[in-house]
């Protein structure tokens, strides 16, 4: 696992059915592009988050492909409709095969 990776997510605790809510996500990750060289001139291997998905009760909300030019600590903010109470599942896929997940429940009321 790449070092210092920590996902964080902000979802309102509750909403009215059918509401559109704003979700903020951030994962601390160095997002090494693979273009840089170290002091000895060797290429620093690429190590990035390459995919980010969010599901709500099993239904996909967004699915993002990340490219090497995205800077360190990638941040996503997006809107989602909440038809019912349930759980958001956030998943980040690392180049080295690691998968980081985070879940947040939201209530109706």
């Amino acid at each position, binding site marked *: 696992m790449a070092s210092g990776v*920590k996902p*964080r997510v*902000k979802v309102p605790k509750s909403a009215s059915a059918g509401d559109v809510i704003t979700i*903020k996500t951030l994962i601390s990750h160095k997002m090494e592009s693979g273009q840089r060289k170290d002091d000895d001139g060797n290429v620093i291997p690429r190590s990035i988050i390459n995919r980010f998905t969010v599901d709500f009760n099993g239904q996909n909300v967004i699915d993002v492909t990340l490219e090497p030019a995205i*800077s*360190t*600590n990638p941040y996503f903010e997006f809107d989602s409709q909440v038809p019912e109470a349930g759980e958001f599942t956030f998943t980040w896929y690392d180049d080295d095969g690691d998968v980081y997940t985070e879940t947040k429940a939201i209530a109706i009321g």
Partner: protein
Amino acid sequence: MKRASSLAFGLACLASAVHAQDTESKLVINDDIDITTVAEAPAHAENLSEIYSGWAFRSPETMALQMDDFDNPGMIFVDQALDAYNTVEGSAGKSCQSCHGDDAEGLVGARAVYPKWNANAGEVWTMEMAINGCRTERMGAEPWGYTSGNMVNMTALISSVSRGMPVNVSFEGPEHDTWLQGKELYYTRTGQLELSCANCHEDNYDMMIRADHLSQGQINGFPTYRLKNAKLNAVHSRFKGCIRDTRAETYSPGSPEFVALELYVASRGNGLSVEGPSVRN
């Protein structure tokens, strides 16, 4: 003549147009912590009538970043510091948490009174010196570099738990000589440009210095996350940058001169809130 007077008029407009410091907006972090960004100047800041946090001089977008911990990129480093805080290091088998409790609760209020006289050492200690004092004396661990990543992150953690509390640095006790030394440094012109701190931050704050909007140079928001370098910056790094910009050879971070200057500058902000980690450009 006519041309000269219209030029003078133009300059006068320009000068007033940059009076853009925002004294209307209120800074409330997480809808919870009220931050004082404008206050009456303390009596010992005799050339100022009001003191302003650097936050008031920034653009609305930058100001907004500080209103929510999720949006404040400095808080990423606070999280990293919390991991270090809970990590046992050194020969004594202790972590910071062993003495200071969970989530730095034992350090609430510390940021507001530092730099502070340390009676055992017989000198003024900054937060960084206190952290290294703990590491070497109590933990038996290696000291951190004065402006190293670990160090500045830890100062951000300690500052974050005191946010909203008024800065209240004392300067009339045994630390008074150091404070006077800091005051002298503040008013001493340095470098090829022959600028003192006061020339920009006291005489000309709220004016533009080329593309930069000059603040009062208050340090209540340190360490600051700067958008220009995407990391936390320690107050001594800022001092060094400022003195370098006067084209002088600078003192080193952690030097007695900078400790004295930090004490003096911090005392000029008595009454503002602890704000770090703040977001600046």
